């Protein structure tokens, strides 16, 4: 495995070659003044300088809607796996960490073939952040840079050239045919300055404790007034869930085709902030209070999911929920800092 350096022009050729390889290339592009991952038609559409995308690249691994099974109505089901090879280009470190966590959650215990098959066929080209977004706090969460999960890591160096570092054979095979120069020691040093800069710059909201302290912090915060205070303004719209790179809850529903003979069992994104998330048949809602749902999300990020993935905190500091929340109550840093203050006082 080796690192190479691209000039801008060489990089465009590299991206063009990816597009021409026949596999769909999904990359961040400008969209109505913001950025979104989408199929890349031309190399120049790829925005190396994007700050954050509206939705995380999770949507390609756990699509908003996906067919799990097909069936004859009332008959037997058969398994569907439609994953095709795909390249995710320009995945920011915080989103890469989120994908790494999701890999572990879908792989562990009961192996989810639908997710894993898609994941195994995906090549990920990560990209160090060039422009910090208005609400990013990845530096507080230890996700401003990333060390694993990608096949290639791209870094835009201060001189405008692009360092590409292959981490897997899959990545190396993509770099091999591209015109580039081997990276020099000085280039790796320059990359280090980018990392150091991002460790400071991606911190628009500053968490007052180490993220690893959050599970402990939440141990004694269950009855804190902050849940009720924040949730009083909550619309239960689930926007915070929908834009989150680590939210993976889903619903499963049967859809029948127009001829009423065949159909598909589909899973689609769901969100624990939505009012009926925990409602069972007979209309009993086990989490009917907004405050309980609001608290559940922050406990999942800071305590419950970490318990399943070796203590990794399931908030990667992308800041999307802060931007998406109409009521401006979704900022996890505000809540955790508030709990910190009161813990210190107590």
């Amino acid at each position, binding site marked *: 495995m080796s690192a190479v350096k691209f000039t801008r022009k060489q990089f465009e050729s590299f991206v063009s070659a990816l597009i021409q390889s026949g596999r769909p290339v999904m990359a961040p592009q400008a969209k109505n003044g913001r950025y979104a991952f989408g199929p890349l038609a031309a190399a120049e559409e790829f925005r190396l300088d994007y700050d954050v995308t509206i939705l995380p690249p999770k949507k390609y691994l756990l699509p908003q809607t996906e067919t*799990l*099974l097909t*069936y*004859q*109505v*009332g*008959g*037997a*089901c*058969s*398994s569907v*796996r439609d*994953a095709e090879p795909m390249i995710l280009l320009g995945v920011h470190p915080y989103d890469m960490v989120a994908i790494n966590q999701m890999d572990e*959650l*879908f792989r562990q*215990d*009961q*192996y*989810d*073939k*639908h997710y*894993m*098959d898609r994941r*195994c*066929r995906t090549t990920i080209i990560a990209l160090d952040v060039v422009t910090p977004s208005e609400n990013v706090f990845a530096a507080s969460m230890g996700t401003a840079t990333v060390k694993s999960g990608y096949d290639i890591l791209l870094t835009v160096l201060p001189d405008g050239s692009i360092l590409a570092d292959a981490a897997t054979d899959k990545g190396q095979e993509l770099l091999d045919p591209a015109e580039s120069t081997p990276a020099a020691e000085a280039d790796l040093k320059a990359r280090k300055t980018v990392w150091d800069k991002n460790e400071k710059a991606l911190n628009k909201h500053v968490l007052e404790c180490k993220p690893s302290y959050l599970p402990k912090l939440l141990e004694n915060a*269950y009855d804190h007034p902050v849940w009720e205070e924040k949730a009083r303004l909550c619309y239960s719209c689930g926007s915070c869930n929908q834009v989150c790179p680590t939210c*993976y*809850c*889903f*619903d*499963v*529903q*049967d859809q*029948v085709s127009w001829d*009423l003979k065949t*159909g598909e*069992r589909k*899973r689609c994104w*769901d969100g*624990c902030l939505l009012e009926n*998330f*925990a*409602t*069972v*048949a*007979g209309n*009993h809602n*086990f*989490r009917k209070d907004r405050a*309980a749902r609001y608290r*559940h999300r922050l*406990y*999942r990020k800071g*305590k*419950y999911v970490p*318990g399943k993935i070796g203590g990794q905190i399931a908030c990667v500091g992308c800041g999307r929920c802060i931007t998406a929340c109409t009521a401006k109550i979704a900022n996890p840093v505000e809540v955790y800092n508030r709990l910190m203050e009161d813990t210190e006082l107590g």
Partner: protein
Amino acid sequence: MCECCNGHKDIYLPEMATITKRRMLNGTELYLHLEMDSGKDLDYRPGQFVEVSIAGIGEAPISISSSPTQKGLELVVRNIGSLTKAIHKLQAGDKLGVRGPYGSTYPIEQAKGKDLVFICGGIGLVPQRSFIRYALDNRRDYGNITILIGTKCYTMRLFREEIALWQERKDMTVLETVDEAHDCWDGNVGVVTTLIPKIESDLPKSLISICGPPIMYKFVLMALAEADVPENNIFVNLERRMKCGVGKCGHCQINDKYVCQDGPVFRYSDLALVPEAI
């Protein structure tokens, strides 16, 4: 398919089962006896559940009511949603999709030698019956068996013939009550907690298993606390929306526990730090 996925089965793919017997237990509860089309019985333990589906309608978690000591699979389905309404229309010979079994089990080994007390409210009898039948089929392994059954009204009583047979047996005690008095009912009237003082077994030393509607747990647990029953001798069987059954979809979560994997049977003392549970 990619190489790493080879050898893993699709965890969402149901097997087909055929309805071999069906009958209504009351106005809303349908009893089903199923046999797997594979010809092999499901390898389950008392307390577990299955995901039952009709392709085109949907899927839902249903408790297993039979014991692994018997052949086939028995379920009881309340007519309450679109899927269960469709299941109620099925006849013997019709097919259902079945995934599982999933979830934790009653402590059938640890309970050996102990007196067993089952406290059942309404359809809470359904999953408890799996353990009751298992204990009856291994009668020498267990001490006294006491079953308390509370039902809202006389007409909603489940498994009446079976309960009548249990009541005739000398090696077990079955106490029944209904919430609302009825002309045809000359037994106890009142909620199920009113039966607790009538238990003859040494309560603090017994293994107590509770299943019923959410509101019932609070009152039964209070009564057991007053009777000095240690919390680690109490088992509760909780209902949640176990949509996937395999610990992924998040719907059945109570705090950090997944009812589909950590439950549905929980030792009550393990729920001390799980405020959403009861």
